[in-house]
């Protein structure tokens, strides 16, 4: 369990897109062939994301977030959507990922993870495969 605490960074604009890698095991394919994300993808208290503005500043397209992760999908939620569910949004740059950020807050209870998921949009679909 994380011992860090993040406060909401209001310099991150409401429209900022927050990218989250989605491994195949969190994807279900419905009868229409749509890739449906499990709420499990949004359950971490300290949820790692990539900040679009930092990636853009560095000249990186969104799909660069899954460059080393074949078969993964890339989903996005907005900072506004996260905040509407009592989450804090903060930058948390890492040496290997300067655009790393965190959506911080309790998500496991009260269906918050599912509501975060409901606001997610695909940026890059995952690759469908039998063995996930």
């Amino acid at each position, binding site marked *: 369990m994380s011992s860090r605490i993040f406060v909401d960074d209001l310099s991150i604009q409401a429209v900022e897109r927050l990218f989250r890698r989605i491994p195949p*095991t969190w994807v279900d394919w419905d009868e229409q062939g749509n890739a*449906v994300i*499990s709420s499990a993808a949004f359950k*971490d208290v300290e949820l790692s994301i990539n900040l679009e503005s930092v990636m853009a500043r560095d000249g990186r397209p969104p799909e660069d977030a899954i460059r080393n992760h074949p078969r993964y999908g890339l989903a996005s939620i907005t900072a506004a959507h996260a905040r509407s569910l009592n989450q804090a949004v903060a930058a948390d740059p890492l040496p290997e990922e300067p655009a790393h950020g965190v959506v911080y807050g309790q998500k496991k209870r009260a269906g918050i993870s599912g509501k975060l998921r409901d606001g997610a949009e695909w940026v890059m679909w995952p690759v469908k495969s039998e*063995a996930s």
Partner: protein
Amino acid sequence: MPALGTAELTIQDRGILATSASAAYLDYFSGEDRVFLSTFQQPVLVSRQRKYYSRGQMFQIEWQDYGQPLPGWFDPLMQGFVDLRTLPQNWDSYGASPIDQKAVHEAMNLINGILGPTSPAPRVVPLSSGGLQLEWHRQGIDLEVVFDRGEQPFFYYRNRVSGDESEHALPQDNARLRSIIGDLE
């Protein structure tokens, strides 16, 4: 084609699976059948086995039951549990640990008493924390049963049409969970 490793579930795993299978099959007998069987013909236990493959490994499970047909949820559920066992370190790319086997056992034990012969199969989904959840999304209902490390299991219910949602502790609310799953059939 990669060589397949062979892995058997532990004796404890098989025990749980055997319990699950037997319980499900016994539900196939009506009360009348049971009287008939107990009076005229004792059901005979037979040994059964089934193989599942996941990420290049083979898992074989063995159990005893009365030879009844497997419920529709059996294979997808077992495959889901087996798939949890073969997830590598950092399977989510964010540093996730392998799934806690205690959580898997807890889920197997609980679901044993919940699913009926015609219940829809849940999807088995790993959590980054090392836990897992069972999910149903049918008929406008979202149902998620969460098993996580060091926490009491619970389920979350949401009716997407009416907006009703609620959360319930397990096993205290097993009956409620059974009823909701029954409505999904």
